[in-house]
């Protein structure tokens, strides 16, 4: 059989139709640098890679990076706890993050950075005086400082602030492009502003009247589609749409059934809640387009935890009682959930319902 390929003129990607070429480029490693290299090959590749449709497909194809472990703040430094047997091909990644984490804690002149949130491979920390954010990519060791405008530092008054880092589909094509969003409340209003690393500036502060007794809840927001969702009390959620140049801030309702749940047992990723203690059912909602074209929270999955995990029990008189469990974390893509019991923390893969015990009981809020 003659080798018609050879090194001279293999026609592969050159004459492939756009849809086939897109399928090939889609399978490059998800790191943005491999896409930016490919976009330098020729105008056709460049046009394909820069199209919003393609970038959306890249995100959908590769989904969220695997869970490597958790961050937690301690008084002297930032700590990273690797997840056991995380579903990652790179066995050294968790150790690398842990080593990096200890050096970030001492970044600057005796400053201790305080961990806030992480998403899309990046972590967000703030300085003790809250005047700076540090955006840190543990995998590449890249660190960027972002100055926080005075108004958003959240010092004094009864201001509650939540900050988070994320990439939009458009920014995913640039290796070190990211956004930081800050949401805070003050004097009966809720405010939001988004920093873009590409522009190097904060966008306008947008604001709206907050409903009566509105309070941001201290849990990581979820990034779904191109919007951030923050849990707030009053049976509602705060939605910050980040897809375009100008953001939109709105308050939306919770799914009705959730009104009976305790706040401490909820996370939004897609959106997850643990039922009241007695029935141990884990509910997963997803934000989906309903038949009428409106975005709605739709129940996706219900898992009976007591049938899955060896939940600790205690004898109460002659009755055996299952000890309370609580939800302590959820990965970005909603595929891994962390359940805390008095016996320790369990990591549950929702797709396969496999679980594993993490033998410690730290307050783990931030899953990387």
């Amino acid at each position: 059989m003659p080798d018609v390929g050879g090194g001279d003129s293999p026609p592969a990607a050159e004459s492939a139709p756009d849809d086939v070429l897109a399928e090939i480029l889609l399978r490059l490693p998800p790191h943005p640098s491999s896409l930016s290299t490919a976009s330098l090959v020729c105008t056709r590749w460049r046009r394909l890679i820069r199209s919003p449709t393609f970038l959306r497909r890249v995100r959908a194809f590769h989904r969220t990076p695997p869970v490597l472990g958790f961050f937690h703040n301690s008084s002297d430094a930032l700590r990273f706890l690797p997840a056991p047997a995380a579903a990652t091909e790179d066995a050294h990644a968790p150790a690398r993050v842990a080593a990096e984490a200890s050096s970030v804690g001492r970044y600057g002149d005796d400053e201790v950075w305080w961990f806030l949130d992480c998403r899309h491979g990046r972590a967000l920390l703030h300085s003790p005086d809250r005047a700076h954010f540090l955006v840190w990519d543990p995998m590449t060791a890249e660190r960027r400082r972002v100055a926080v405008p005075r108004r958003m530092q959240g010092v004094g008054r009864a201001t509650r602030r939540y900050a988070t880092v994320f990439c939009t589909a458009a920014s995913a094509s640039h290796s070190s492009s990211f956004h930081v969003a800050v949401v805070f409340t003050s004097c009966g209003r809720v405010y939001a502003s988004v920093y873009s690393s590409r522009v190097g500036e904060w966008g306008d502060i947008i604001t709206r009247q907050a409903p009566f007794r509105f309070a941001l809840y201290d849990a990581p927001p979820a990034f779904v589609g191109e919007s951030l969702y923050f849990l707030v009390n009053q049976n509602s959620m705060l939605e910050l749409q980040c897809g375009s140049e100008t953001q939109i801030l709105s308050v939306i309702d919770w799914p009705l059934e959730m009104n009976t749940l305790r706040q401490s047992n909820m996370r939004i990723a897609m959106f997850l809640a643990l039922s009241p203690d007695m029935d141990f059912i884990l509910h997963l909602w997803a934000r989906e387009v309903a038949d009428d074209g409106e975005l709605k929270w739709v129940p996706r999955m219900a898992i009976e935890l007591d049938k899955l995990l060896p939940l600790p029990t205690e004898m109460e008189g002659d009755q055996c009682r299952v000890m309370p469990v609580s939800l302590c974390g959820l990965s970005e893509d909603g595929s891994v959930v962390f359940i805390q019991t008095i016996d320790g923390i369990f990591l549950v893969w929702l797709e396969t319902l496999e679980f594993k015990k993490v033998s410690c009981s730290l307050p783990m809020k931030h899953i990387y």
Partner: protein
Amino acid sequence: MATGSGAAAAAADAEEKESGSRMITLTSNEGKAFVVTEASARQSATIRSMVDDGGCVDKGFPLPNVDSKTLARVIQYCDEHGNKEAHTVDERAALAKFDKDFIAELDADKAFLYDVTMAANYLHIQGLFALTTQCIADTIKGKTPEEIRTAFGIEYDLTAQDEEEIKEEDTHA
């Protein structure tokens, strides 16, 4: 798999009566007939939908976009994935091993790899298409833009304006 001829087609007709083991004839653009099991042919979503629509199962399916050499290789993949079970861990491991060897062989002949990719795309054979496109992507991985151009015979055609934009992005990045 048998190739060619009316004898094979007759055999297919006979077997058609046994449920689940119907034979289907695929014809390359060179007119060569390949007789495969229905399970094998159903690896292709294109053929599957034609079969399910009650289409020309008896007459066979002419494939004007696929040459004999490519079709034979595509059928090799479909036979393996369509005719063998993949329920146990061992069965799945055996299939994975097959895929690995299959793609390694194709990888040595890039033009042929491309032909198989195009056929897999045309016939909508999802697993094969994923396998070949991933293989081509792996070829691109780790290369500089110049190396990629050389490997794929692509002409450099970025304009001065493009280059300006790229520089701009790099300073922001």
